[in-house]
Structure formats: structure tokens, C-alpha cells
């Protein structure tokens, strides 16, 4: 499976591979090396290194290319959810927040800063009660900060939080950072 993707990416001559989900970028940049180290050929390893070197997580790429100047009119009170993989494995720290701030949004700090949403892949169904309690804490913190919107860069976290919020009946909106940036840019243009 990983090898299929590796071949596909390696055969592309794009300068940068931009991945819109933090976990996927982590997979390619961090865990592939380990994977192919253990179960790959020399060719796999060479390709994995080479692909990893030009793979960027979405916000990291955008931020490095200079944050767009599009102070929009969107003042929605927002909490940014820092996903574990991006924060700890990729070390992507403030980039997404910088980008978000460029839209002029009312970004608020949260008491659950950097705390896991409780998804964790299989974890979410192996220990559903704990997983839900973890989501609750992140959601409560967002609401406690007065947020109406949660923005993230990792689809899995957003899925977990949104699913729980829907069940609780929380009035919270969930958006990928790209959506918010896109919307802000569209507004600025028009």
C-alpha cells in the first residue's frame, strides 16, 4: 500500500508535494522512513527519502511561501485545533495560526492547547468512552473560549470533533484551514 503511493509520488517531478492532512504528511515524512527501513528495498529507501524531502504539510508550505495578505472581513470567534502529528512529529507549531490570523479572524486561545482530540485512529473505537471524553474536553475548551468555529489542518481530528459536537448539539462549525483561507481570498477578490 505505502509502496504504491511511494511509486506514484516518486515518479512525479513536482518540486513540492503538498498534503492537506497533517497525519498523512507525517506518514510520508516521518513514518515512511522507518517503514522502508524495516521492510523495504534500497530503492524504496532512496525514494522515500527523496519524497519526504519535498513533502510539505499544507499550512507549512503556504506559510513558508509567505502568508497571503488577505485580511478578510470574517470575524468569527475561532479556536485553532493543533493536531498531535503536526505539532509533535512534524514540529509545525505556529504556521497554521499565522495563516489563520491573516484572514482577520477572531482567533482565541484555548485551555486545551495542544491536547489530543481523542481520535487516534483505532483508539476511537477501541476505547470509545475515553475517546469521547477527550473530545469533550477539547470542545468544552473551545466553547469556554467563546468560539463558534474550530479550524484545523487534520481531517481526522476535525471528523472526530465534529461527530461528537453534532451528537452533543454544540453550535460549532468545523473547517479545514484551507477552506477558511479560500473563503477569505474569495471575499477579498470580490
Amino acid at each position, binding site marked *: 500500500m505505502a509502496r504504491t503511493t511511494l511509486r506514484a509520488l516518486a515518479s512525479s517531478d513536482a518540486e513540492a508535494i503538498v498534503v492537506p492532512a497533517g497525519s498523512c504528511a507525517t506518514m510520508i515524512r516521518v513514518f515512511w522512513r522507518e517503514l522502508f*527501513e524495516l521492510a523495504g528495498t534500497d530503492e524504496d529507501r532512496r525514494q522515500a527519502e527523496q519524497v519526504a524531502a519535498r513533502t510539505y504539510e499544507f499550512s507549512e508550505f503556504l506559510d513558508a511561501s509567505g502568508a497571503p495578505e488577505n485580511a478578510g472581513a470574517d470575524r468569527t470567534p475561532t479556536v485553532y485545533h493543533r493536531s498531535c502529528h503536526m505539532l509533535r512529529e512534524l514540529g509545525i507549531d505556529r504556521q497554521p495560526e499565522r495563516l489563520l490570523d491573516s484572514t482577520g479572524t477572531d482567533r482565541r486561545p484555548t485551555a486545551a492547547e495542544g491536547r489530543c482530540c481523542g481520535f487516534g485512529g483505532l483508539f476511537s473505537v477501541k476505547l470509545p468512552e475515553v475517546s469521547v471524553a477527550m473530545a469533550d474536553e477539547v470542545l468544552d475548551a473551545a466553547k469556554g473560549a467563546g468560539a463558534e468555529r474550530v479550524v484545523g489542518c487534520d481531517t481526522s481530528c476535525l471528523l472526530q470533533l465534529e461527530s461528537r459536537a453534532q451528537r452533543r448539539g454544540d453550535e460549532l462549525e468545523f473547517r479545514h484551514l484551507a477552506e477558511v483561507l479560500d473563503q477569505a481570498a474569495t471575499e477579498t477578490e470580490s
Partner: protein
Amino acid sequence: MTTRAEFLAAVRDRLREPIPENHLRPLTEAGLGEPIRYAVELSDPEARFLEAATGVGAEVVGRPEDDLRAILERVRDDVRPARAVVTDDPECKGVAPILASLGVEVLAAGGPSDVATADLGVTGALGGVALTGSLVMDSGRARTRLASLLPEVHLALLARDRIAATPGDFLRELSRWFPDGLPSNIVFITGPSRSADIELEITVGVHGPRKVLVALR
């Protein structure tokens, strides 16, 4: 019962092959090299010691220029001890007669149940640590380890020129501090005994002294 040889052989056996590496987060060979670098001002050890010691709740009751009798008088007025125990540390020279003349009964050396009846323990300190505000007790010089432990109040006399900058500086020079080899008990004391076992609220004087007083000499 397993013998030493058997136990160690089993350990050795596990180390025949190289230990597998974590490729994601490999272990670097970052040798020990330089001592830990601290972001704390340590150029004046005495000043830092006093700041750190009071920061953890120790009280400074005397400076080198103060007269020993004046210090002990202040301590007596503050603590009102009925009974005191004084160690054989060289810094304590002259303490017992002064205390006696101030109306404090000074216990003759004894075991735990005697020392436990004292409400003041007076000890010297072999040295201090500036970074942490710690006092270093040496059971060899003091001949007792309980004077700094059982009484409610512990008064330590510390020479100002015996303050190491960091714990590491002290530990790297153990052979200088203890030229005759390590005593059976060395203890670094940093402030009064404390516990945070109930709701992480810090309470003082759980098993050891409630008050730690320091006089610089």
C-alpha cells in the same frame, strides 16, 4: 536463590547482540561533555543561595557579620525551644554553651527517641548549593543524621565560602568535599519538609522540620 554470578550472567546474555535502534529517533552519542548550562545568574553564589533558599521557604536568621549569640537569641525568641540538640559539626562550636546560657536545655548525644524530644536541631552544613538554595549535611562530621530531621525547627550554620554554584559542581568535586571517602549519609536539604499529596496543595512540615533557618557564617 539466584546468585550474583547467575544474575549478572543473565544480564550479560541479553547484551551479546547490539541493541536494535529506533530509526525515527536514533540515540545520539551526545557524550556528557560540559556540565549542565543554566539560565540563572550564578556569578554571586551567596546572593543566589539566599534568594533560592528563601524562595523555598527557608528563613535567613543571620549573616557572617552577626554575632553568634545574637543569632541564637533571636532564634530562641522566635522559636521558644525548650530543648535543643546540637551536632558535632565544626560550625556548631560554641553553640551549646550559649543556648544553655539562654535557658535552653541542650540534650546530650543520644538515639532517636532522645532527639525526638528536642524542638530545635542545630547543625552545621558541610556546604551549600547556590542554584537551588540547598544545604549539604554530612553524617560523618555531624555524627547524627537526626538533628536536621526530627525536631520541628532546624537551624543550619553555613560558611559563606562553601557554596557551590550548582548541584553538579558539588557532585563533580565529591573527593574534594570528602577527602576521607563518602560518609554513610549525605543529604541535600532544600527548605522545610513538604508534601503535595492532597490536591497538590503544598503543605509544610509533614515528617521533617516545619521550619528551616539558615545562618551564614
